[in-house]
């Protein structure tokens, strides 16, 4: 039933039919985009990860985030991005698995009945190529999943640390304002009358959601010490000199 014959090649025109089908699908995708959105859209970046369309989609979302950061409106996906994503899906999920799995099945069934070694043919090379891509995708997904989860966790932690650091710096700026106005104000208005002596930190600034603060005054110099509440190993130390400038910023723990 599954005997090898002279015409056991995939079939006349098989390769060019597959190629033509792929080109037609991608071409239609690109053409339809130009038809619907004819305005010129500048490409944002080039992608090499064609086999992973979610990376292309994610890159576009982050690109729009960067545009929003600069106050610009989001851009529509470029035809190039769309063609890349669609091509990736078609190659990784349709073309390669279909050719590989159906040919693999044919060979398994054929080998069960015939034990002759098949000569190397174009179809064998094609089968090997689609097999390599399919198996690569299948084998790579578990490590990719683990690696991306690890990267995601560490990125979120790094961003949380950075936000905490920025929030503490902002609150230290408010402490500096309190210090400077204390320095300026006369004693009858609760100030230091050109000295920092006697300065006391406001209750709201002693401990916030982000950090607890200690201000120590010695002669004409003030030390502000901030200990992170969210990340207890992290701290910031800064000096305020007699001219009211914050100097000698010192970061500890993960703030470094």
């Amino acid at each position: 039933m599954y005997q090898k014959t002279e015409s056991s090649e995939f079939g006349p025109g098989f390769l060019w039919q597959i190629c033509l089908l792929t080109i037609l699908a991608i071409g239609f995708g690109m053409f339809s985009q130009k038809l619907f959105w004819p305005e010129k859209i500048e490409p944002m970046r080039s992608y090499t990860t064609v086999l992973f369309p979610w990376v292309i989609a994610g890159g576009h979302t982050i690109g729009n985030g960067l545009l929003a950061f600069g106050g610009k409106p989001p851009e529509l996906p470029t035809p190039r991005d769309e063609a890349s994503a669609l091509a990736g899906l078609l190659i990784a999920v349709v073309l390669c698995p279909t050719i590989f799995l159906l040919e693999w099945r044919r060979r398994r069934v054929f080998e069960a009945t015939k034990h002759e070694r098949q000569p190397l043919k174009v179809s064998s090379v094609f089968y090997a190529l689609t097999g390599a891509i399919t198996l690569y995708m299948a084998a790579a997904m578990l490590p990719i999943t683990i690696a991306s989860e690890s990267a995601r966790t560490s990125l979120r932690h790094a961003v949380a640390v950075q936000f905490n650091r920025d929030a503490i710096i902002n609150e230290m700026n408010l402490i500096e304002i309190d210090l400077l106005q204390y320095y300026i104000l006369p004693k009858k208005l609760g100030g230091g009358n050109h000295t920092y002596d006697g300065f006391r930190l406001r209750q709201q600034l002693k401990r916030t959601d982000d950090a607890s603060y200690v201000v120590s005054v010695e002669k004409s110099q003030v030390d502000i010490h901030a200990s992170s509440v969210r990340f207890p190993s992290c701290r910031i130390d800064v000096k305020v000199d007699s001219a009211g400038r914050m100097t000698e910023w010192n970061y500890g723990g993960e703030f470094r």
Partner: protein
Amino acid sequence: MEKTTVTIEIKQEVSITLLWIAGGVIAVSSAFLLAPQSAELWPAANLAGVIAGVYLVALLLYALRKPLSAKLRILVGMVALVAMACTAFTWMRMEDQSRWQAEELMKIRAVIGRGIMKNEMPKPLLKTLEAYHQQGARKKKSLADVFRNLQPGVAACSNIHKPMWEGDPMRVIVETLDPDRIVLVSQETYVKGRDPNFKNYDGKTGMVQEKFILTERGISHVSEN
């Protein structure tokens, strides 16, 4: 006669393969192209991805049918399912992660904006406070007079921020210029604050806004949104 039958069967196999490919290409491409248009690639990619997943399951069921051994079918099926599950998981996590990163960028922008406001807005007020109290106990000039001396030409509703670079969008507006009370307000024009319904100084809604109030007793800060 036998050779003719085999040739026909192989041609049938080729036709079936081509049919699978054509069906997959048409289904996935249609889903991708017919998805709702959006500024993001996700709607099209997700819809096409779901169709591609259904296609792969159907293909596996077809390819792993008898007469292949049950052991082989289970093994290949399990490997394929694990790979597909990992792909779906990574795909969804990437969507979530990219959206999160885009949102974080705006949060970072808000932190930067607030930081610049908190750094720049108190400076003219502290100078005013210092000059005001340097007059001694008997003050001839009000806070507003001192502020006007230091900021020539200033009036209520005017911007006192000198651009730090070309295209610097920051504005520090004198909201109130009373003899004993000066209020400075600054806002972002496109960075969202905490309350989306907050009415901003310039009429926009929901943007970051910071306020500093100067009286003779000192400066107070209000993070309005």
